[in-house]
């Protein structure tokens, strides 16, 4: 049956502008591009799912096609939903593990030293490559010992004492891999007199969506909306996230892709730099020490789609001493779990090649970006260290070395 509300493909005027701006179509001829994989063939798939073409799996869901489309066709949404609507769901161990960042994290953080040690060993890499189809070239993010949440719980009281508070959706990466980023969020928000409240949350769903676990993604979405709403409305707070992809999922993927009503939290959601920028604009700027570093800023695709890039740039511009170059907007190629899959690894690296070249031309001391997976990709593919804008801001505030 054709659902009437889902006919944005009908607005397509076949101009091919989307395909021009698709980084994957540029990198490989195996992918016919957003126009063909999206609106062109969707009308066929609706009639007969057998007309499904395998090549649409190449799409990384970067959303660059949607930004370019003059006719507002939700091209990437069409492709993503076709992936899980029409492909038969075959269980793959690898995809299951890649999708379940929270499950993996909660186990790995108990034995992080072991996991971090083993994952680097040749036989393990060989096994992953050969049997799990995770390319041996791929470097993994390190797991932390324990969770961010357990650290936070020791500081909850101090945070609750602030008059103004924000609910912080920390996401899996901060919880299991990078506690420091979560701590930096506290440093920065506290410096502008905002307390940080953490509530119950589940993985935002981005890796689940990418790997076709839609029911699970929907469950998580409902849980998160409910939990965030309860916590935020109780104290009249806004909800912030420092991961551009989590933020994007909460705001856009829930209603557009998962078809879940997020209106209860939508108006309160802020990607963190927007929250900070707004306060800066109102004169609430903390005292900052110079951070005399030459940095190159890379804007993640999902932040671009949300229109949040300017906030990050404006916030970074306020840091004294920071010598900032804004890199031309390019996709880094990793697209969450995409770059962890052997069949796409080469494409992912080729997509990112232009960005890596541009970074090398600037030759900065650090790269700054808002997305954790962009960070993994750039750190793996170039010699440069990558930091989150909030981390750079936190160093300007606490004066510690970046």
């Amino acid at each position: 049956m054709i659902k009437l509300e889902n006919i944005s493909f009908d607005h397509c005027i076949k101009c091919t502008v989307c395909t021009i701006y698709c980084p994957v179509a540029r990198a490989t001829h195996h992918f016919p591009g957003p126009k063909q994989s999206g609106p062109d063939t969707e009308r066929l798939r609706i009639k007969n799912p057998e007309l499904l073409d395998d090549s649409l799996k190449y799409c990384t869901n970067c959303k660059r096609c949607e930004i370019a489309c003059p006719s507002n066709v939700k091209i990437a949404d069409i492709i993503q939903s076709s992936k899980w609507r029409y492909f038969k769901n075959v269980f793959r161990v690898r995809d299951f593990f890649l999708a379940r960042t929270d499950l993996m994290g909660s186990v790995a953080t108990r034995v992080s030293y072991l996991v971090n040690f083993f994952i680097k060993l040749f036989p393990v890499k060989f096994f992953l490559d050969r049997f799990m189809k995770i390319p041996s070239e791929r470097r993994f993010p390190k797991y932390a010992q324990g969770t961010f949440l357990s650290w936070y719980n020791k500081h909850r009281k101090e945070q609750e004492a602030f008059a103004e508070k924000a609910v912080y959706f920390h996401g899996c990466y901060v919880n299991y891999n990078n506690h420091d980023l979560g701590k930096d969020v506290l440093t920065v928000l506290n410096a502008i007199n905002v307390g940080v409240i953490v509530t119950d949350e589940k993985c935002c769903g981005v890796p689940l969506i990418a790997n076709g676990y839609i029911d699970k993604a929907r469950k998580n979405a409902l849980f998160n909306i409910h939990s965030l709403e309860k916590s935020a409305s109780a104290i009249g707070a806004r909800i912030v996230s420092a991961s551009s992809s989590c933020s994007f999922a909460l705001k856009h993927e829930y209603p557009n892709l998962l078809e879940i009503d997020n209106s209860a939290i939508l108006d309160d959601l802020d990607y963190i730099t927007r929250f900070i920028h707004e306060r800066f604009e109102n004169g609430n700027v903390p005292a900052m020490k110079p951070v005399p570093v030459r940095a190159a800023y890379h804007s993640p695709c999902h932040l671009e789609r949300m229109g949040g890039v300017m906030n990050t740039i404006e916030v970074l511009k306020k840091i004294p001493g920071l010598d900032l170059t804004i890199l031309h907007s390019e996709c880094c190629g990793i697209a969450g779990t995409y770059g962890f899959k052997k069949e796409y690894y080469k494409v992912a690296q080729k997509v990112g090649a232009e960005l890596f070249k541009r970074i090398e031309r600037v030759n900065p001391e650090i790269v700054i970006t808002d997305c954790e997976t962009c960070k993994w990709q750039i750190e793996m593919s170039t010699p440069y260290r990558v930091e989150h804008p909030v981390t750079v801001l936190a160093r300007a505030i606490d004066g510690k070395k970046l």
Partner: protein
Amino acid sequence: MRYDCVIIGGGLSGITCGIRLAEKGASCAVISTGMSALHFSSGSIDLFGHEGEGKTVFRPFEFLDDFIGSNPLHPYARCGSSQIREALFYFRDQLGREDIDLYNNDDANHFHVTTLGTLKPTFFSQRSVFNEKIRQAFEKKSKIAALNFEGYRDFYPELAVINLKRNILFRNIEIISGKILYPDYGDPRRNPFEYRSIDIARIFDTERYLEDLAAQIRAAAGDAAFAAMPAFLGITNFKRHHQLLQQLTGLLIYEIPTLPPSILGMRIDNALKSRFAALGGVYIAGDTVKSGTISGGRLESVYTENGGASALGAGNFVLASGSFFSGGLVSEFSRVREPVFGLRVHSDAERSRWYAPEFFPRDGHPFLEYGVETDERLNPLTDDGQRIANLYCIGALLPHYNPIREGSGGGVAVSTGYRAAELILAGN
């Protein structure tokens, strides 16, 4: 968030306006839903090509001096002919800084060859499309080779040659057509349905096959002095490739604009955005302005799809949201509407009068002349007749002109964009 000026729509008119404002130190943000009409245009900037009876205009400025007096509602009349000139040459200068050299035949129009092999009067063209050497070669009646890439479906040199031969200017010029093989073409993995100008242009940006192609062009062109090819020289480094290819082949190489997506138009889009960013402008892509707060005859702030409840404030606003094609105007069954602020629109209530029965009517389709009604300061009126003093409407959104019949689209976009910037700067 607050800027000195927020511009709605990132096409030719919006960014030209933004560049002028940013250059003068105003903080500016451009918000744009999607890519603009530049992606479909020839990449030449038309000023005025055809007058009322379809006669070609050779000296557009002279023509405009009279025309403006008798067409006071035309967007050009809102600018005045001296400011139109100032705007166009300002635009050329700005693109020059981004390494795009525009050719103009002093104050006269020149003609560029279209995909179909017809000649179109225009004011500025990229130098790979027209230049002095090409003009001289035409005058000497040198032989032309119209070449295409094997498998490229958006340009048919044979058809172009037939049409060109009908033109009196080409009657005594020998034109041959030929094909060259694009080195990657035989790749069986290549998707045959997506072999577009952009695919070719991308390979040129890598410079990988330049020598090979030069040899093929040489062979296919025989003893011709020109090679006319679909616009393909790449988007970022085309100037260098054009020079290299001319050196390697010893031929004059010129580019013919193709069906969309237009490489020539994308170069201009690229250059404008890059210039705007270099001047400190903020470009917000992929977001749509949904509504605004108007109070006391002023637009206080606007709201966007992504921004939700958080407002974007500014001292001045510019509406450069284009025509029907870009969503600046929307047609419903029995009315034409401006969707963001519900501004007063010039149109016809009777739907059957919106268009002419023929596809290419001599006088153009009436709907092309619909748009947002403004006063001479480009300020629009709300539906209930209230003037909005700090909102300026520019470009294809404006009524009372027909870009296709007149051949004036690019010129109107550039001059009204510049005009709005000047009005805003003068007001502060």
